[in-house]
């Protein structure tokens, strides 16, 4: 039996098509995935992300703990409320999960991790937290709704509690404000402005309905995937997992090698990989012909197989098919993809493909 978020009944009442997703019964769309996608790029849409897990980490040495645990450096976080994106690595550099961590005080950080990885993440956190006397508290009592799009913050404003509203509206990108049980981050997974709102589970269905009444389009996982793909944001389990390092996943920018004395888990493996050279490239691809790029399709340079697509699909903003792929360092620019036995030309582009309502590449 798949797990259900607190919004499950609300989704069904509002006409969502539900599908199993990583052990959860989730909405894939509310009718047209493409219309939901456009609503987020042009106006405002919302996503049920209650299946993701909020983890509070508390203790006098919590910062030192996270500086050891994460590939990015929470030492960069000096203003309370500021957020950081990071990978959590195995000693061999494989990615256990990607996550967002918020600095709230010298004794309290909050982390948001993926749904499907929650169990192993909590085990990993628990294993390493003890040495730092850090308490790990998974907040299964917290609901989470992402409201995204150019008009998302304006449409959500009136629905935020009075005591956090002004602070939330004043937030800079990638930071959070909180009051009582509500926690609002100006973050997201779509390449648009917006909020991720954490609140008591019991209040979540009412917020969802009120946002819909305020003109925010309910969206399913389908649109969430095409939006993040256009925005050039990796998906754990597709674009990276425990078998690859962030350096081979387009995530080098999230690995803080400075300061050199910070000894984070996976550091020496990444340094070795870097020194050895020829790390696989993680690239954006656009299909020049009609058709759809999909995960696991093979990429060729001439007759040589040079890698494969990690995630792909149809971009509603570009009206083209786009993909992320992992290819060998010497693959070059003349690439083709094998789709059902046919070779079609793909063009290597710099990601993102689209953000903030606009295409970011030339067509």
């Amino acid at each position, binding site marked *: 039996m798949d797990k259900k978020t607190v919004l499950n009944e609300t989704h069904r009442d509002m006409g969502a*098509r539900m599908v199993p997703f990583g052990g959860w019964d989730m909405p894939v769309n509310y009718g*047209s*995935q*493409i219309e939901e996608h456009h609503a987020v790029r042009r106006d405002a849409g919302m996503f049920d992300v209650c299946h993701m897990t909020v983890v509070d980490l508390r203790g006098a040495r919590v910062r030192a703990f996270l500086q050891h645990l994460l590939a990015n450096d929470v030492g960069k976080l000096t203003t309370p409320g500021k957020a950081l994106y990071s990978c959590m690595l195995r000693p061999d550099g494989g990615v256990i999960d990607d996550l967002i961590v918020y600095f709230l005080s010298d004794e309290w950080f909050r982390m948001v991790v993926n749904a499907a990885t929650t169990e192993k993440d909590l085990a990993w956190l628990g294993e390493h937290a003890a040495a730092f006397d850090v308490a790990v508290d998974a907040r299964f009592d917290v609901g989470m709704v992402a409201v995204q799009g150019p008009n998302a913050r304006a449409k959500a404003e009136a629905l935020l509690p009075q005591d956090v509203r002004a602070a939330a509206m004043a937030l800079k990108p990638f930071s959070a404000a909180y009051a009582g049980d509500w926690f609002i981050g100006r973050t997201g997974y779509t390449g648009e402005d917006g909020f991720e709102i954490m609140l008591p589970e019991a209040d979540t269905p009412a917020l969802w309905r009120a946002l819909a009444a305020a003109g925010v389009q309910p969206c399913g996982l*389908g649109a969430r995937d095409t939006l993040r793909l256009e925005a050039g944001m990796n998906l754990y389990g597709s674009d990276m997992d425990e078998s690859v390092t962030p350096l081979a996943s387009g995530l080098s920018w999230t690995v803080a090698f400075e300061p050199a004395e910070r000894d984070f888990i996976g550091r020496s493996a990444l340094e070795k990989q870097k020194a050895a050279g020829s790390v696989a490239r993680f690239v954006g691809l656009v299909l020049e012909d*009609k*058709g*759809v790029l999909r995960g696991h399709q093979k990429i060729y340079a001439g007759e040589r197989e040079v890698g494969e697509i990690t995630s792909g699909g*149809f971009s509603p903003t570009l009206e083209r*098919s786009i993909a992320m792929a992992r290819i060998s360092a010497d693959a070059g620019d003349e690439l083709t993809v094998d789709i059902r036995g046919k070779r079609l030309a793909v063009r290597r582009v710099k990601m993102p493909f689209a953000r903030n309502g606009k295409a970011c590449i030339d067509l």
Partner: protein
Amino acid sequence: MSNDVPSELKYTKSHEWVRVEDDGVVTIGITDHAQELLGDLVFVELPEVGAELGAGSECAVVESVKAASDVFSPLSGEVIEVNEALAEAPETINQEAYEGGWIFRLRLSDPAELEGLMDADSYAEHAESDEH
């Protein structure tokens, strides 16, 4: 969820519909139920005109935002026409699966095969059970 299942058409378990036209020709597409399961269609790979198809053979691919799905020829025969308009407007299948969303026309080599297809009532039942 209930979908449109016109009574004058024949159906397959794999969610194709068949309209019997004059002169041993049939028109083939995918059902309203199939398009709804697939979601927004973004690409259709059509069969080749002149191709000889066997009943049950893969002959086209419909791709939605979610996935690629094979279309199987319900019957044996020669492809005499394909719906070129789908190349530019695959969403026509979402909008009108049984009209503008037709995929190809086949000249039957064995009209007796029509007897093996499902009628609307059986298909509606099949589609319903497929939901669960």
